[in-house]
């Protein structure tokens, strides 16, 4: 890989949500926290599509929000274009906000139902005080063309409830592009769309990326789409990254036991699969993110642990494995594979 520019860097990010048990909880000594994100570090290179994948509750959505500074991290640093924005006050984040945007899962909920399409897309422009009314119409029209919502007159003044699911998501994409951003966080952008239009929207996102040199952070729980769309994948479990590599590597050569379980669990449209049970190498249920045991947090569900040598078992019980490069550009946090 050539020396590429890092556009976003997460350093040991943590986000703990305190559990309130009433007004008097401020007097409790032992405070409980939901450790949604518990120390993750990664770089996102400019122009790539970086994926955070994991099951519900693993912290991927929270990480996305942290990177957009919608939440302030409990610990760690967020660095955007070489500037540390972890603690910058909201007022000084205007440039940052212009350069970043988001596409979210439910396109209908992501729009104010009383706004017309024009108002939805031009809202970022108005917030940043860009352009007169005529100029805004010009900009919005160009954006509608770019996301292929034509004829423009038909869509400019429509309300969200008059659009189909795919059209709504295109409007949200147009809004995300309004300020010519450099970095877009896409949180499950196609999971609520019909199968036949998912590929269309993903194709659109890919075309826009090439044209505008965008960087995407793609958050999903669907590994198949992640493999198709993303360059690199980071697998998250209980607030930490357990494996990080290129998409093809993760899909064809998973190393971490959790990744292996996820890959094994994904169904495939092959009718012969129904003749056998799908074996998923994992035990138990997802534990609560409140009481996280010391040592490796995957230990209660790990099938590799049961057959591991004693020395490694001891490590698993006491020390948390760090995210280490075990193969070329392939990072894993598992004592079985770290030398």
């Amino acid at each position, binding site marked *: 890989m050539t020396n590429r520019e890092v556009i976003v860097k997460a350093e040991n990010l943590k986000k703990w949500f305190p559990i309130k048990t009433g007004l008097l909880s401020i007097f409790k000594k032992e405070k409980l926290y939901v450790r949604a994100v518990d120390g993750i570090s990664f770089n996102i290179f400019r122009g790539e599509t970086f994926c955070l994948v994991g*099951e*519900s509750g693993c912290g991927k959505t929270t990480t996305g929000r942290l990177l957009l500074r919608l939440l302030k991290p409990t610990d760690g640093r967020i660095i955007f274009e070489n500037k540390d924005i972890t603690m910058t006050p909201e007022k000084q984040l205007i440039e940052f906000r212009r350069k970043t945007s988001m596409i979210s899962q439910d396109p209908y909920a992501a729009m104010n139902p009383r706004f017309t399409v024009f108002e939805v897309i031009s809202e970022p422009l108005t917030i940043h005080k860009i352009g007169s009314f005529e100029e805004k119409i010009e900009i919005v029209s160009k954006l509608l063309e770019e996301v292929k919502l034509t004829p423009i007159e038909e869509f400019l003044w429509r309300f969200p409830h008059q659009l*189909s*699911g*795919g*059209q709504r998501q295109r409007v949200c994409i147009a809004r995300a592009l309004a300020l010519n951003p450099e970095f877009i966080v896409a949180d499950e952008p196609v999971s609520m769309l*019909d*199968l*036949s*239009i*998912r*590929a*269309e929207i*993903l*194709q659109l996102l890919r075309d826009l990326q090439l044209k505008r040199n965008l960087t995407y952070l793609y958050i999903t*729980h*669907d*590994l*198949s*789409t992640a*493999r*198709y769309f993303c360059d690199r994948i980071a697998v998250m479990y209980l607030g930490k990254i357990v494996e990080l590599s290129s998409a*093809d590597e993760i*899909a*064809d050569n998973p190393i971490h036991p959790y990744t292996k*379980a*996820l*890959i*094994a*669990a*994904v*169904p*495939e*449209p*092959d*009718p012969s*699969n*129904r003749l056998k*049970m*799908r074996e*998923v190498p*994992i035990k138990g*249920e*997802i534990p609560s993110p409140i009481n996280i045991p010391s040592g490796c947090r995957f230990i209660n569900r790990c099938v590799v642990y049961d057959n591991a040598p004693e020395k490694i078992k001891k490590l698993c019980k006491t020390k948390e494995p760090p995210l280490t490069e075990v193969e070329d550009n392939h990072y894993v946090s598992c004592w079985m594979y770290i030398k």
Partner: protein
Amino acid sequence: MKELLEVRELKTYFILDERRIVKAVDNVSIRLSQGESLGLAGESGCGKSTLGYSILTCIPRPGKIVGGEILFEGENVANKPESWLRRHYRWIKVSMVFQGAMNSLNPVLTVGRQLSEPLVYHKNMTYKEARKYVVEALKLVGLPEHIVDRYPHELSGGMKQRAVIAMALILKPKLVIADEPTTALDVVVQAQIINLLKNLTQREGMGLILITHDLSVLSEVVDKVAIMYAGKIVEYGTSEQIYLTPKHPYTQKLLRAVPRLHVKVDKLEFIPGAPPNLISPPPGCRFHPRCPIFKEKSNFKGLCDIEEPPLIEVEPEHKVACWIYAKR
């Protein structure tokens, strides 16, 4: 062997007002034998859920069965009175796992209490007597006995879905209709539920109709598949025939739109446009405005856009509704 379920030319319409009628299920016929599993696949608004509700005769208002028959073990349940259906059919012969049911469990009742209700109502048992059967049903879905006294909020998503499936099985029906049972679940839990459904059909001999838009999930469970589009069945056959040799353009495109994990895909295909308005669907074949064959080959113009293609058999057990295969 008598067919367990035979649906003949069923029409279920939603009558919004005098002028607006949504033809949700329009002339659909399917067949199911004892121990067989059928998958209903299609996108949102194709009518698969409505078909499921129709078979259970529990269609939400303002929907009505306006034509056709639903023959369950030879008897037409489409025109039976409500009292008969309540006493002899619903939940006893056929039950349903509704979409999003796991979030609709009563939060103030224990799981055991909720599962006991059909027993108390239909078999006149007391809650104490019902407990034995409840534990049995929970075992069938892989849940331990202590779940009987747990409240829904104490269970994880996967456990809740299993509990709902247990609720559908409690009176040991011959057919279970499952509407999107794995949509809101994580991939590991989804695999477990898929395994459970496979177990129930293959080992327990339960009839299953699985309704989902996820073609991958469908292929892992069912023997027969019906692809629905805009209220009609466009292709119908065994899993092998549908997945390996799909004939209808829609099915072909749909299968090429499924993202794959274990195979590297260069380009996922998509179908431009959107599913049609069911109040005034396009004339002729409902898929023709989006059909690539119709757009490319001119000899279909004047045919696909005027006359509806009939469902014809192209090979044993494989039926397609497309003018490519039907003769004029």
